[in-house]
């Protein structure tokens, strides 16, 4: 049993060490906590890879290539973002102790969410993670509205967790346990599924859709990203999505596949709603964080629309899109960390006016990531768009192709408004000197993008077998 949870246990050990450092080390800086997190994360991910198929409790906790892939990606994105977050805390001269503590706790939960093959375990991890996110949101001290936002998030998260719990209780009442395998067997063997179990399944899935910020359950995400501090907004945009995606796919394929036909139409509606709400919302947005939060909702819609049939191809194409989108968003958030004027980070669109004239390299990187998000060749985003649209055409969902491409044009218009502001408007303020670490991260990200673009096999090789593992 120990070996099953060893990566999570190692990560958990980071927490008391951090507490001890806080107590006994007088000069604990953000770098200290980042260094601690870094080594524990590294050790944990190495163990995840070494023990990729070791699971003594396969009925409730699965360790496989599929879960290891997602865990590794979660660690990779967390590592990069924690590095940038530590630079943020250093410049802001604020304590990062709680941020890294909550971040590590959240990572443990995300690991469990990825591997969970039992609804109770999944629910527990989701609930604890929601609490961590709640406290992470509250890390912002200079904004009164943050309490409203955090409480609203907590309220809705609690509501959807209760909804999920109710759905799970219905299955538990019937089966006596909540293992994926047993629920799957029950749904698979029943020729005529009673309505009650369909409702129960819908309750569970709606909870997952809420955490994934799929429209119409996306409302919490926009304000959370807008009002929380940048390290938290970036973390919530980049990291949990991977775990939720992995858990959602595993849940549909391993549990609800026999009744998936009942949910396909609602999922299409949610996906289309996400696409258009995201695209239309982004077009009217003046705050850059909210604009990209709308962009995230749009991208979630794109991923969901690709997933619709839950075939091996659709899973692979949506995964490629997710990865490409996250790489671009990582670049975008890295750029945000460089846009600072008189010690204050700028997030209003009008404040971005003419940045290209003042910070040419940063603006150029920003532009490249924006073009990638539009999905225009030759940028990496094209790979994601190609993968999704090709899959939809293969499955003869031509009307979905039309809807997706129409929303893409709308979304591209929103990004072009940003490009126009950054490049063609006159600057209205001066910008501070940029931290070298931001340049390093951007350069590395761009090198990765270029390599992936020239040789997408580096990006995609091995991942093609990923769907085989989930089924």
């Amino acid at each position: 049993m120990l070996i099953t949870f060893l990566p999570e246990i190692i990560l958990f050990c980071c927490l008391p060490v951090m507490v001890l450092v806080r107590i006994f080390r007088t000069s604990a800086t953000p770098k200290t906590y980042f260094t601690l997190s870094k080594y524990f994360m590294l050790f944990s991910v190495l163990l995840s890879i070494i023990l990729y198929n070791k699971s003594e409790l396969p009925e409730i906790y699965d360790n496989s290539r599929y879960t290891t892939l997602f865990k590794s990606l979660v660690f990779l994105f967390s590592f990069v973002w924690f590095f940038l977050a530590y630079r943020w805390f250093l410049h802001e001269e604020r304590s990062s102790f709680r941020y890294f503590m909550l971040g590590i706790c959240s990572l443990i939960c995300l690991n469990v969410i990825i591997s969970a093959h039992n609804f109770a375990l999944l629910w527990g991890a989701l609930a604890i993670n929601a609490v961590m996110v709640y406290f992470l949101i509250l890390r912002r001290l200079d904004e009164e509205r943050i309490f409203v936002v955090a409480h609203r998030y907590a309220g809705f998260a609690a509501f959807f967790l209760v909804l999920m719990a109710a759905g799970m209780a219905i299955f538990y009442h019937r089966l006596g346990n909540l293992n994926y395998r047993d629920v799957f067997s029950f749904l698979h063997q029943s020729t005529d599924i009673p309505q009650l179990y369909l409702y129960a399944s819908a309750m569970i899935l709606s909870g997952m859709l809420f955490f994934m910020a799929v429209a119409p359950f996306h409302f919490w995400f926009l304000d959370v990203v807008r009002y929380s501090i940048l390290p938290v907004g970036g973390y919530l945009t980049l990291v949990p999505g991977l775990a939720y995606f992995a858990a959602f796919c595993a849940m549909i394929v391993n549990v609800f596949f026999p009744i998936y036909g009942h949910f396909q139409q609602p999922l299409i509606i949610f996906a289309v709603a996400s696409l258009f709400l995201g695209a239309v919302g982004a077009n009217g947005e003046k705050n850059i964080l909210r604009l990209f939060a709308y962009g995230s909702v749009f991208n979630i819609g794109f991923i969901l629309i690709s997933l619709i049939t839950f075939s091996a191809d659709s899973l692979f194409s949506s995964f490629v899109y997710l990865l490409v989108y996250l790489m671009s968003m990582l670049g975008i958030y890295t750029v945000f960390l460089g846009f600072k004027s008189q010690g204050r980070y700028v997030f209003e669109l009008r404040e971005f006016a003419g940045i290209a004239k003042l910070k040419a390299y940063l603006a150029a990187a920003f532009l490249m990531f924006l073009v990638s998000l539009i999905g225009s060749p030759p940028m990496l985003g094209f790979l994601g768009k190609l993968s999704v649209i090709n899959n939809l055409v293969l499955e003869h969902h031509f009307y979905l192709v039309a809807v997706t491409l129409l929303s893409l044009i709308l979304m591209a218009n929103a990004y072009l408004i940003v490009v126009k502001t950054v490049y063609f408007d006159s600057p209205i303020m001066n910008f501070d000197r940029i931290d070298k670490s931001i340049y390093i991260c951007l350069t590395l990200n761009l090198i990765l993008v270029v390599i992936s673009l020239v040789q997408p096999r580096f990006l995609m090789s091995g991942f093609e077998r990923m769907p085989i593992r989930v089924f």
Partner: protein
Amino acid sequence: MSSNFYLLSVIITLPFLGMLFVLSAKNDEKTGGRNVYNVSLFTVIANIVLILRLFSRLDVKSSALQLVERFTWLENPRIDIVLGVDVFSALLLLSIHIAFIIGFIAVRHNRIQQKSMMVFALLFLSQLTGFLVAADIFSFYIFFEAMLFPVFMLIGIFGDIRRQGIMYRFFLYNFLGAVVLFLATIILYNYQNGAVEISKVASLSFNGKIEHFMWASILISFLSRIPVWPFHFWISSVSSSIKNPLVFIIVNLIPLTGIYGLIRFLPQTFPASAAFYITALEIIGVVTMLFIALIGFINRDTQYKFFSYITVYYIMYMLGLLSKNNLIMLNVGFSFFSYLIIVAGLEFVSSYIRSQQEKLELGTEGLLCPVPRLAFVYSFLVLAAIGLPVSSLFLNNFLIISSLLGNNFSLGITVVCALVLSSGALLGDLYRLKDNSAFCPEKGCIMDISKPYFFFMAFIIFVLIASFIRPLWFLGM
């Protein structure tokens, strides 16, 4: 160079590498943008040398794609990037590069955003080159869409006060066209279970709705680049808002991509269901042509007259292609060679005149009288532009008009009217500029072009005349 040398890849990559060098070059007040300019010019000249080398390896008598290079880009879905070239695309490559050189020389003394201009110009050149040597539908689409971005940036940087609206118009029309082509590409790809070479698209047969959808998508995507109603709004706005000669030349190369797409994709025999659309397209095309030629004739703005001339000719090429006359298809390549150089040359000279005129606050009447070198170059280019026998354009006009008159007399006559109007517009402008009676030396005179510029333009004139005498003169054919 060894036989397996990736010449086409190098020709695409070189402007891109040049762009990277330009990015790293200094562009401060001390250097006055010289570094940036020299690197850009050297890149294009180096590419011209490579293109000439490419010609020496081409079998010019063969219409098949040659020097084919194939790279596997993606495993799943399997996508191979195939590059290849024939005489037609090689001629276009050469003329585009010469047009770029002319554009670069025209912005020699530009001090505004020189670095940005050169970066995006070289990026565009790289992508346009890739587009012209793309031999499979995926690489064709990739370059087709990718070239929009540098143009968007150039319009944003060098457009006038109306640029915001113009940029969105440009984006809306062209991005929509690219999206439609993307869809057609994906369907073609899946329909054929793998990458399809462009040369085979024309001979593919589809069934029912797919056939309608495919051809409608392909036509719309290419028409979005050609200034035909209702797709012409973006290009007329852009052309009238751009005063920078290099950017003007670049923007007016966009319709070329639409015409080139039509040449590559149009089926050898139109499906019966397409007959109505072709007729509708011919009517729309000819009405747009006449309308724009008329506006160009009435308008006194030289820039708009050029736009009118360029549009009329692009539509004429399109109508010629729709007539499915093989002789015309062959001739279009030779004709484009002169046409692109003439357009770039005219823009170079007119931007020079405009800048001098604005500097001295002079009217246009008699402006060319005291400047013999400029007057000679401008007069020659105008005469070549209207199709007099001084360039390969003459033969093209002759062939297209005779073919159109033979196929559909009323259509042919309308085209002739439009051509006469656009030629009249250019000649009227030339007459005004050379009107001795209106010349007043007391008001001041513009400066003639310098001797190096004149010799350069004389060389361009020599190239045009040579293209009239023997289209493949540089190959000794």
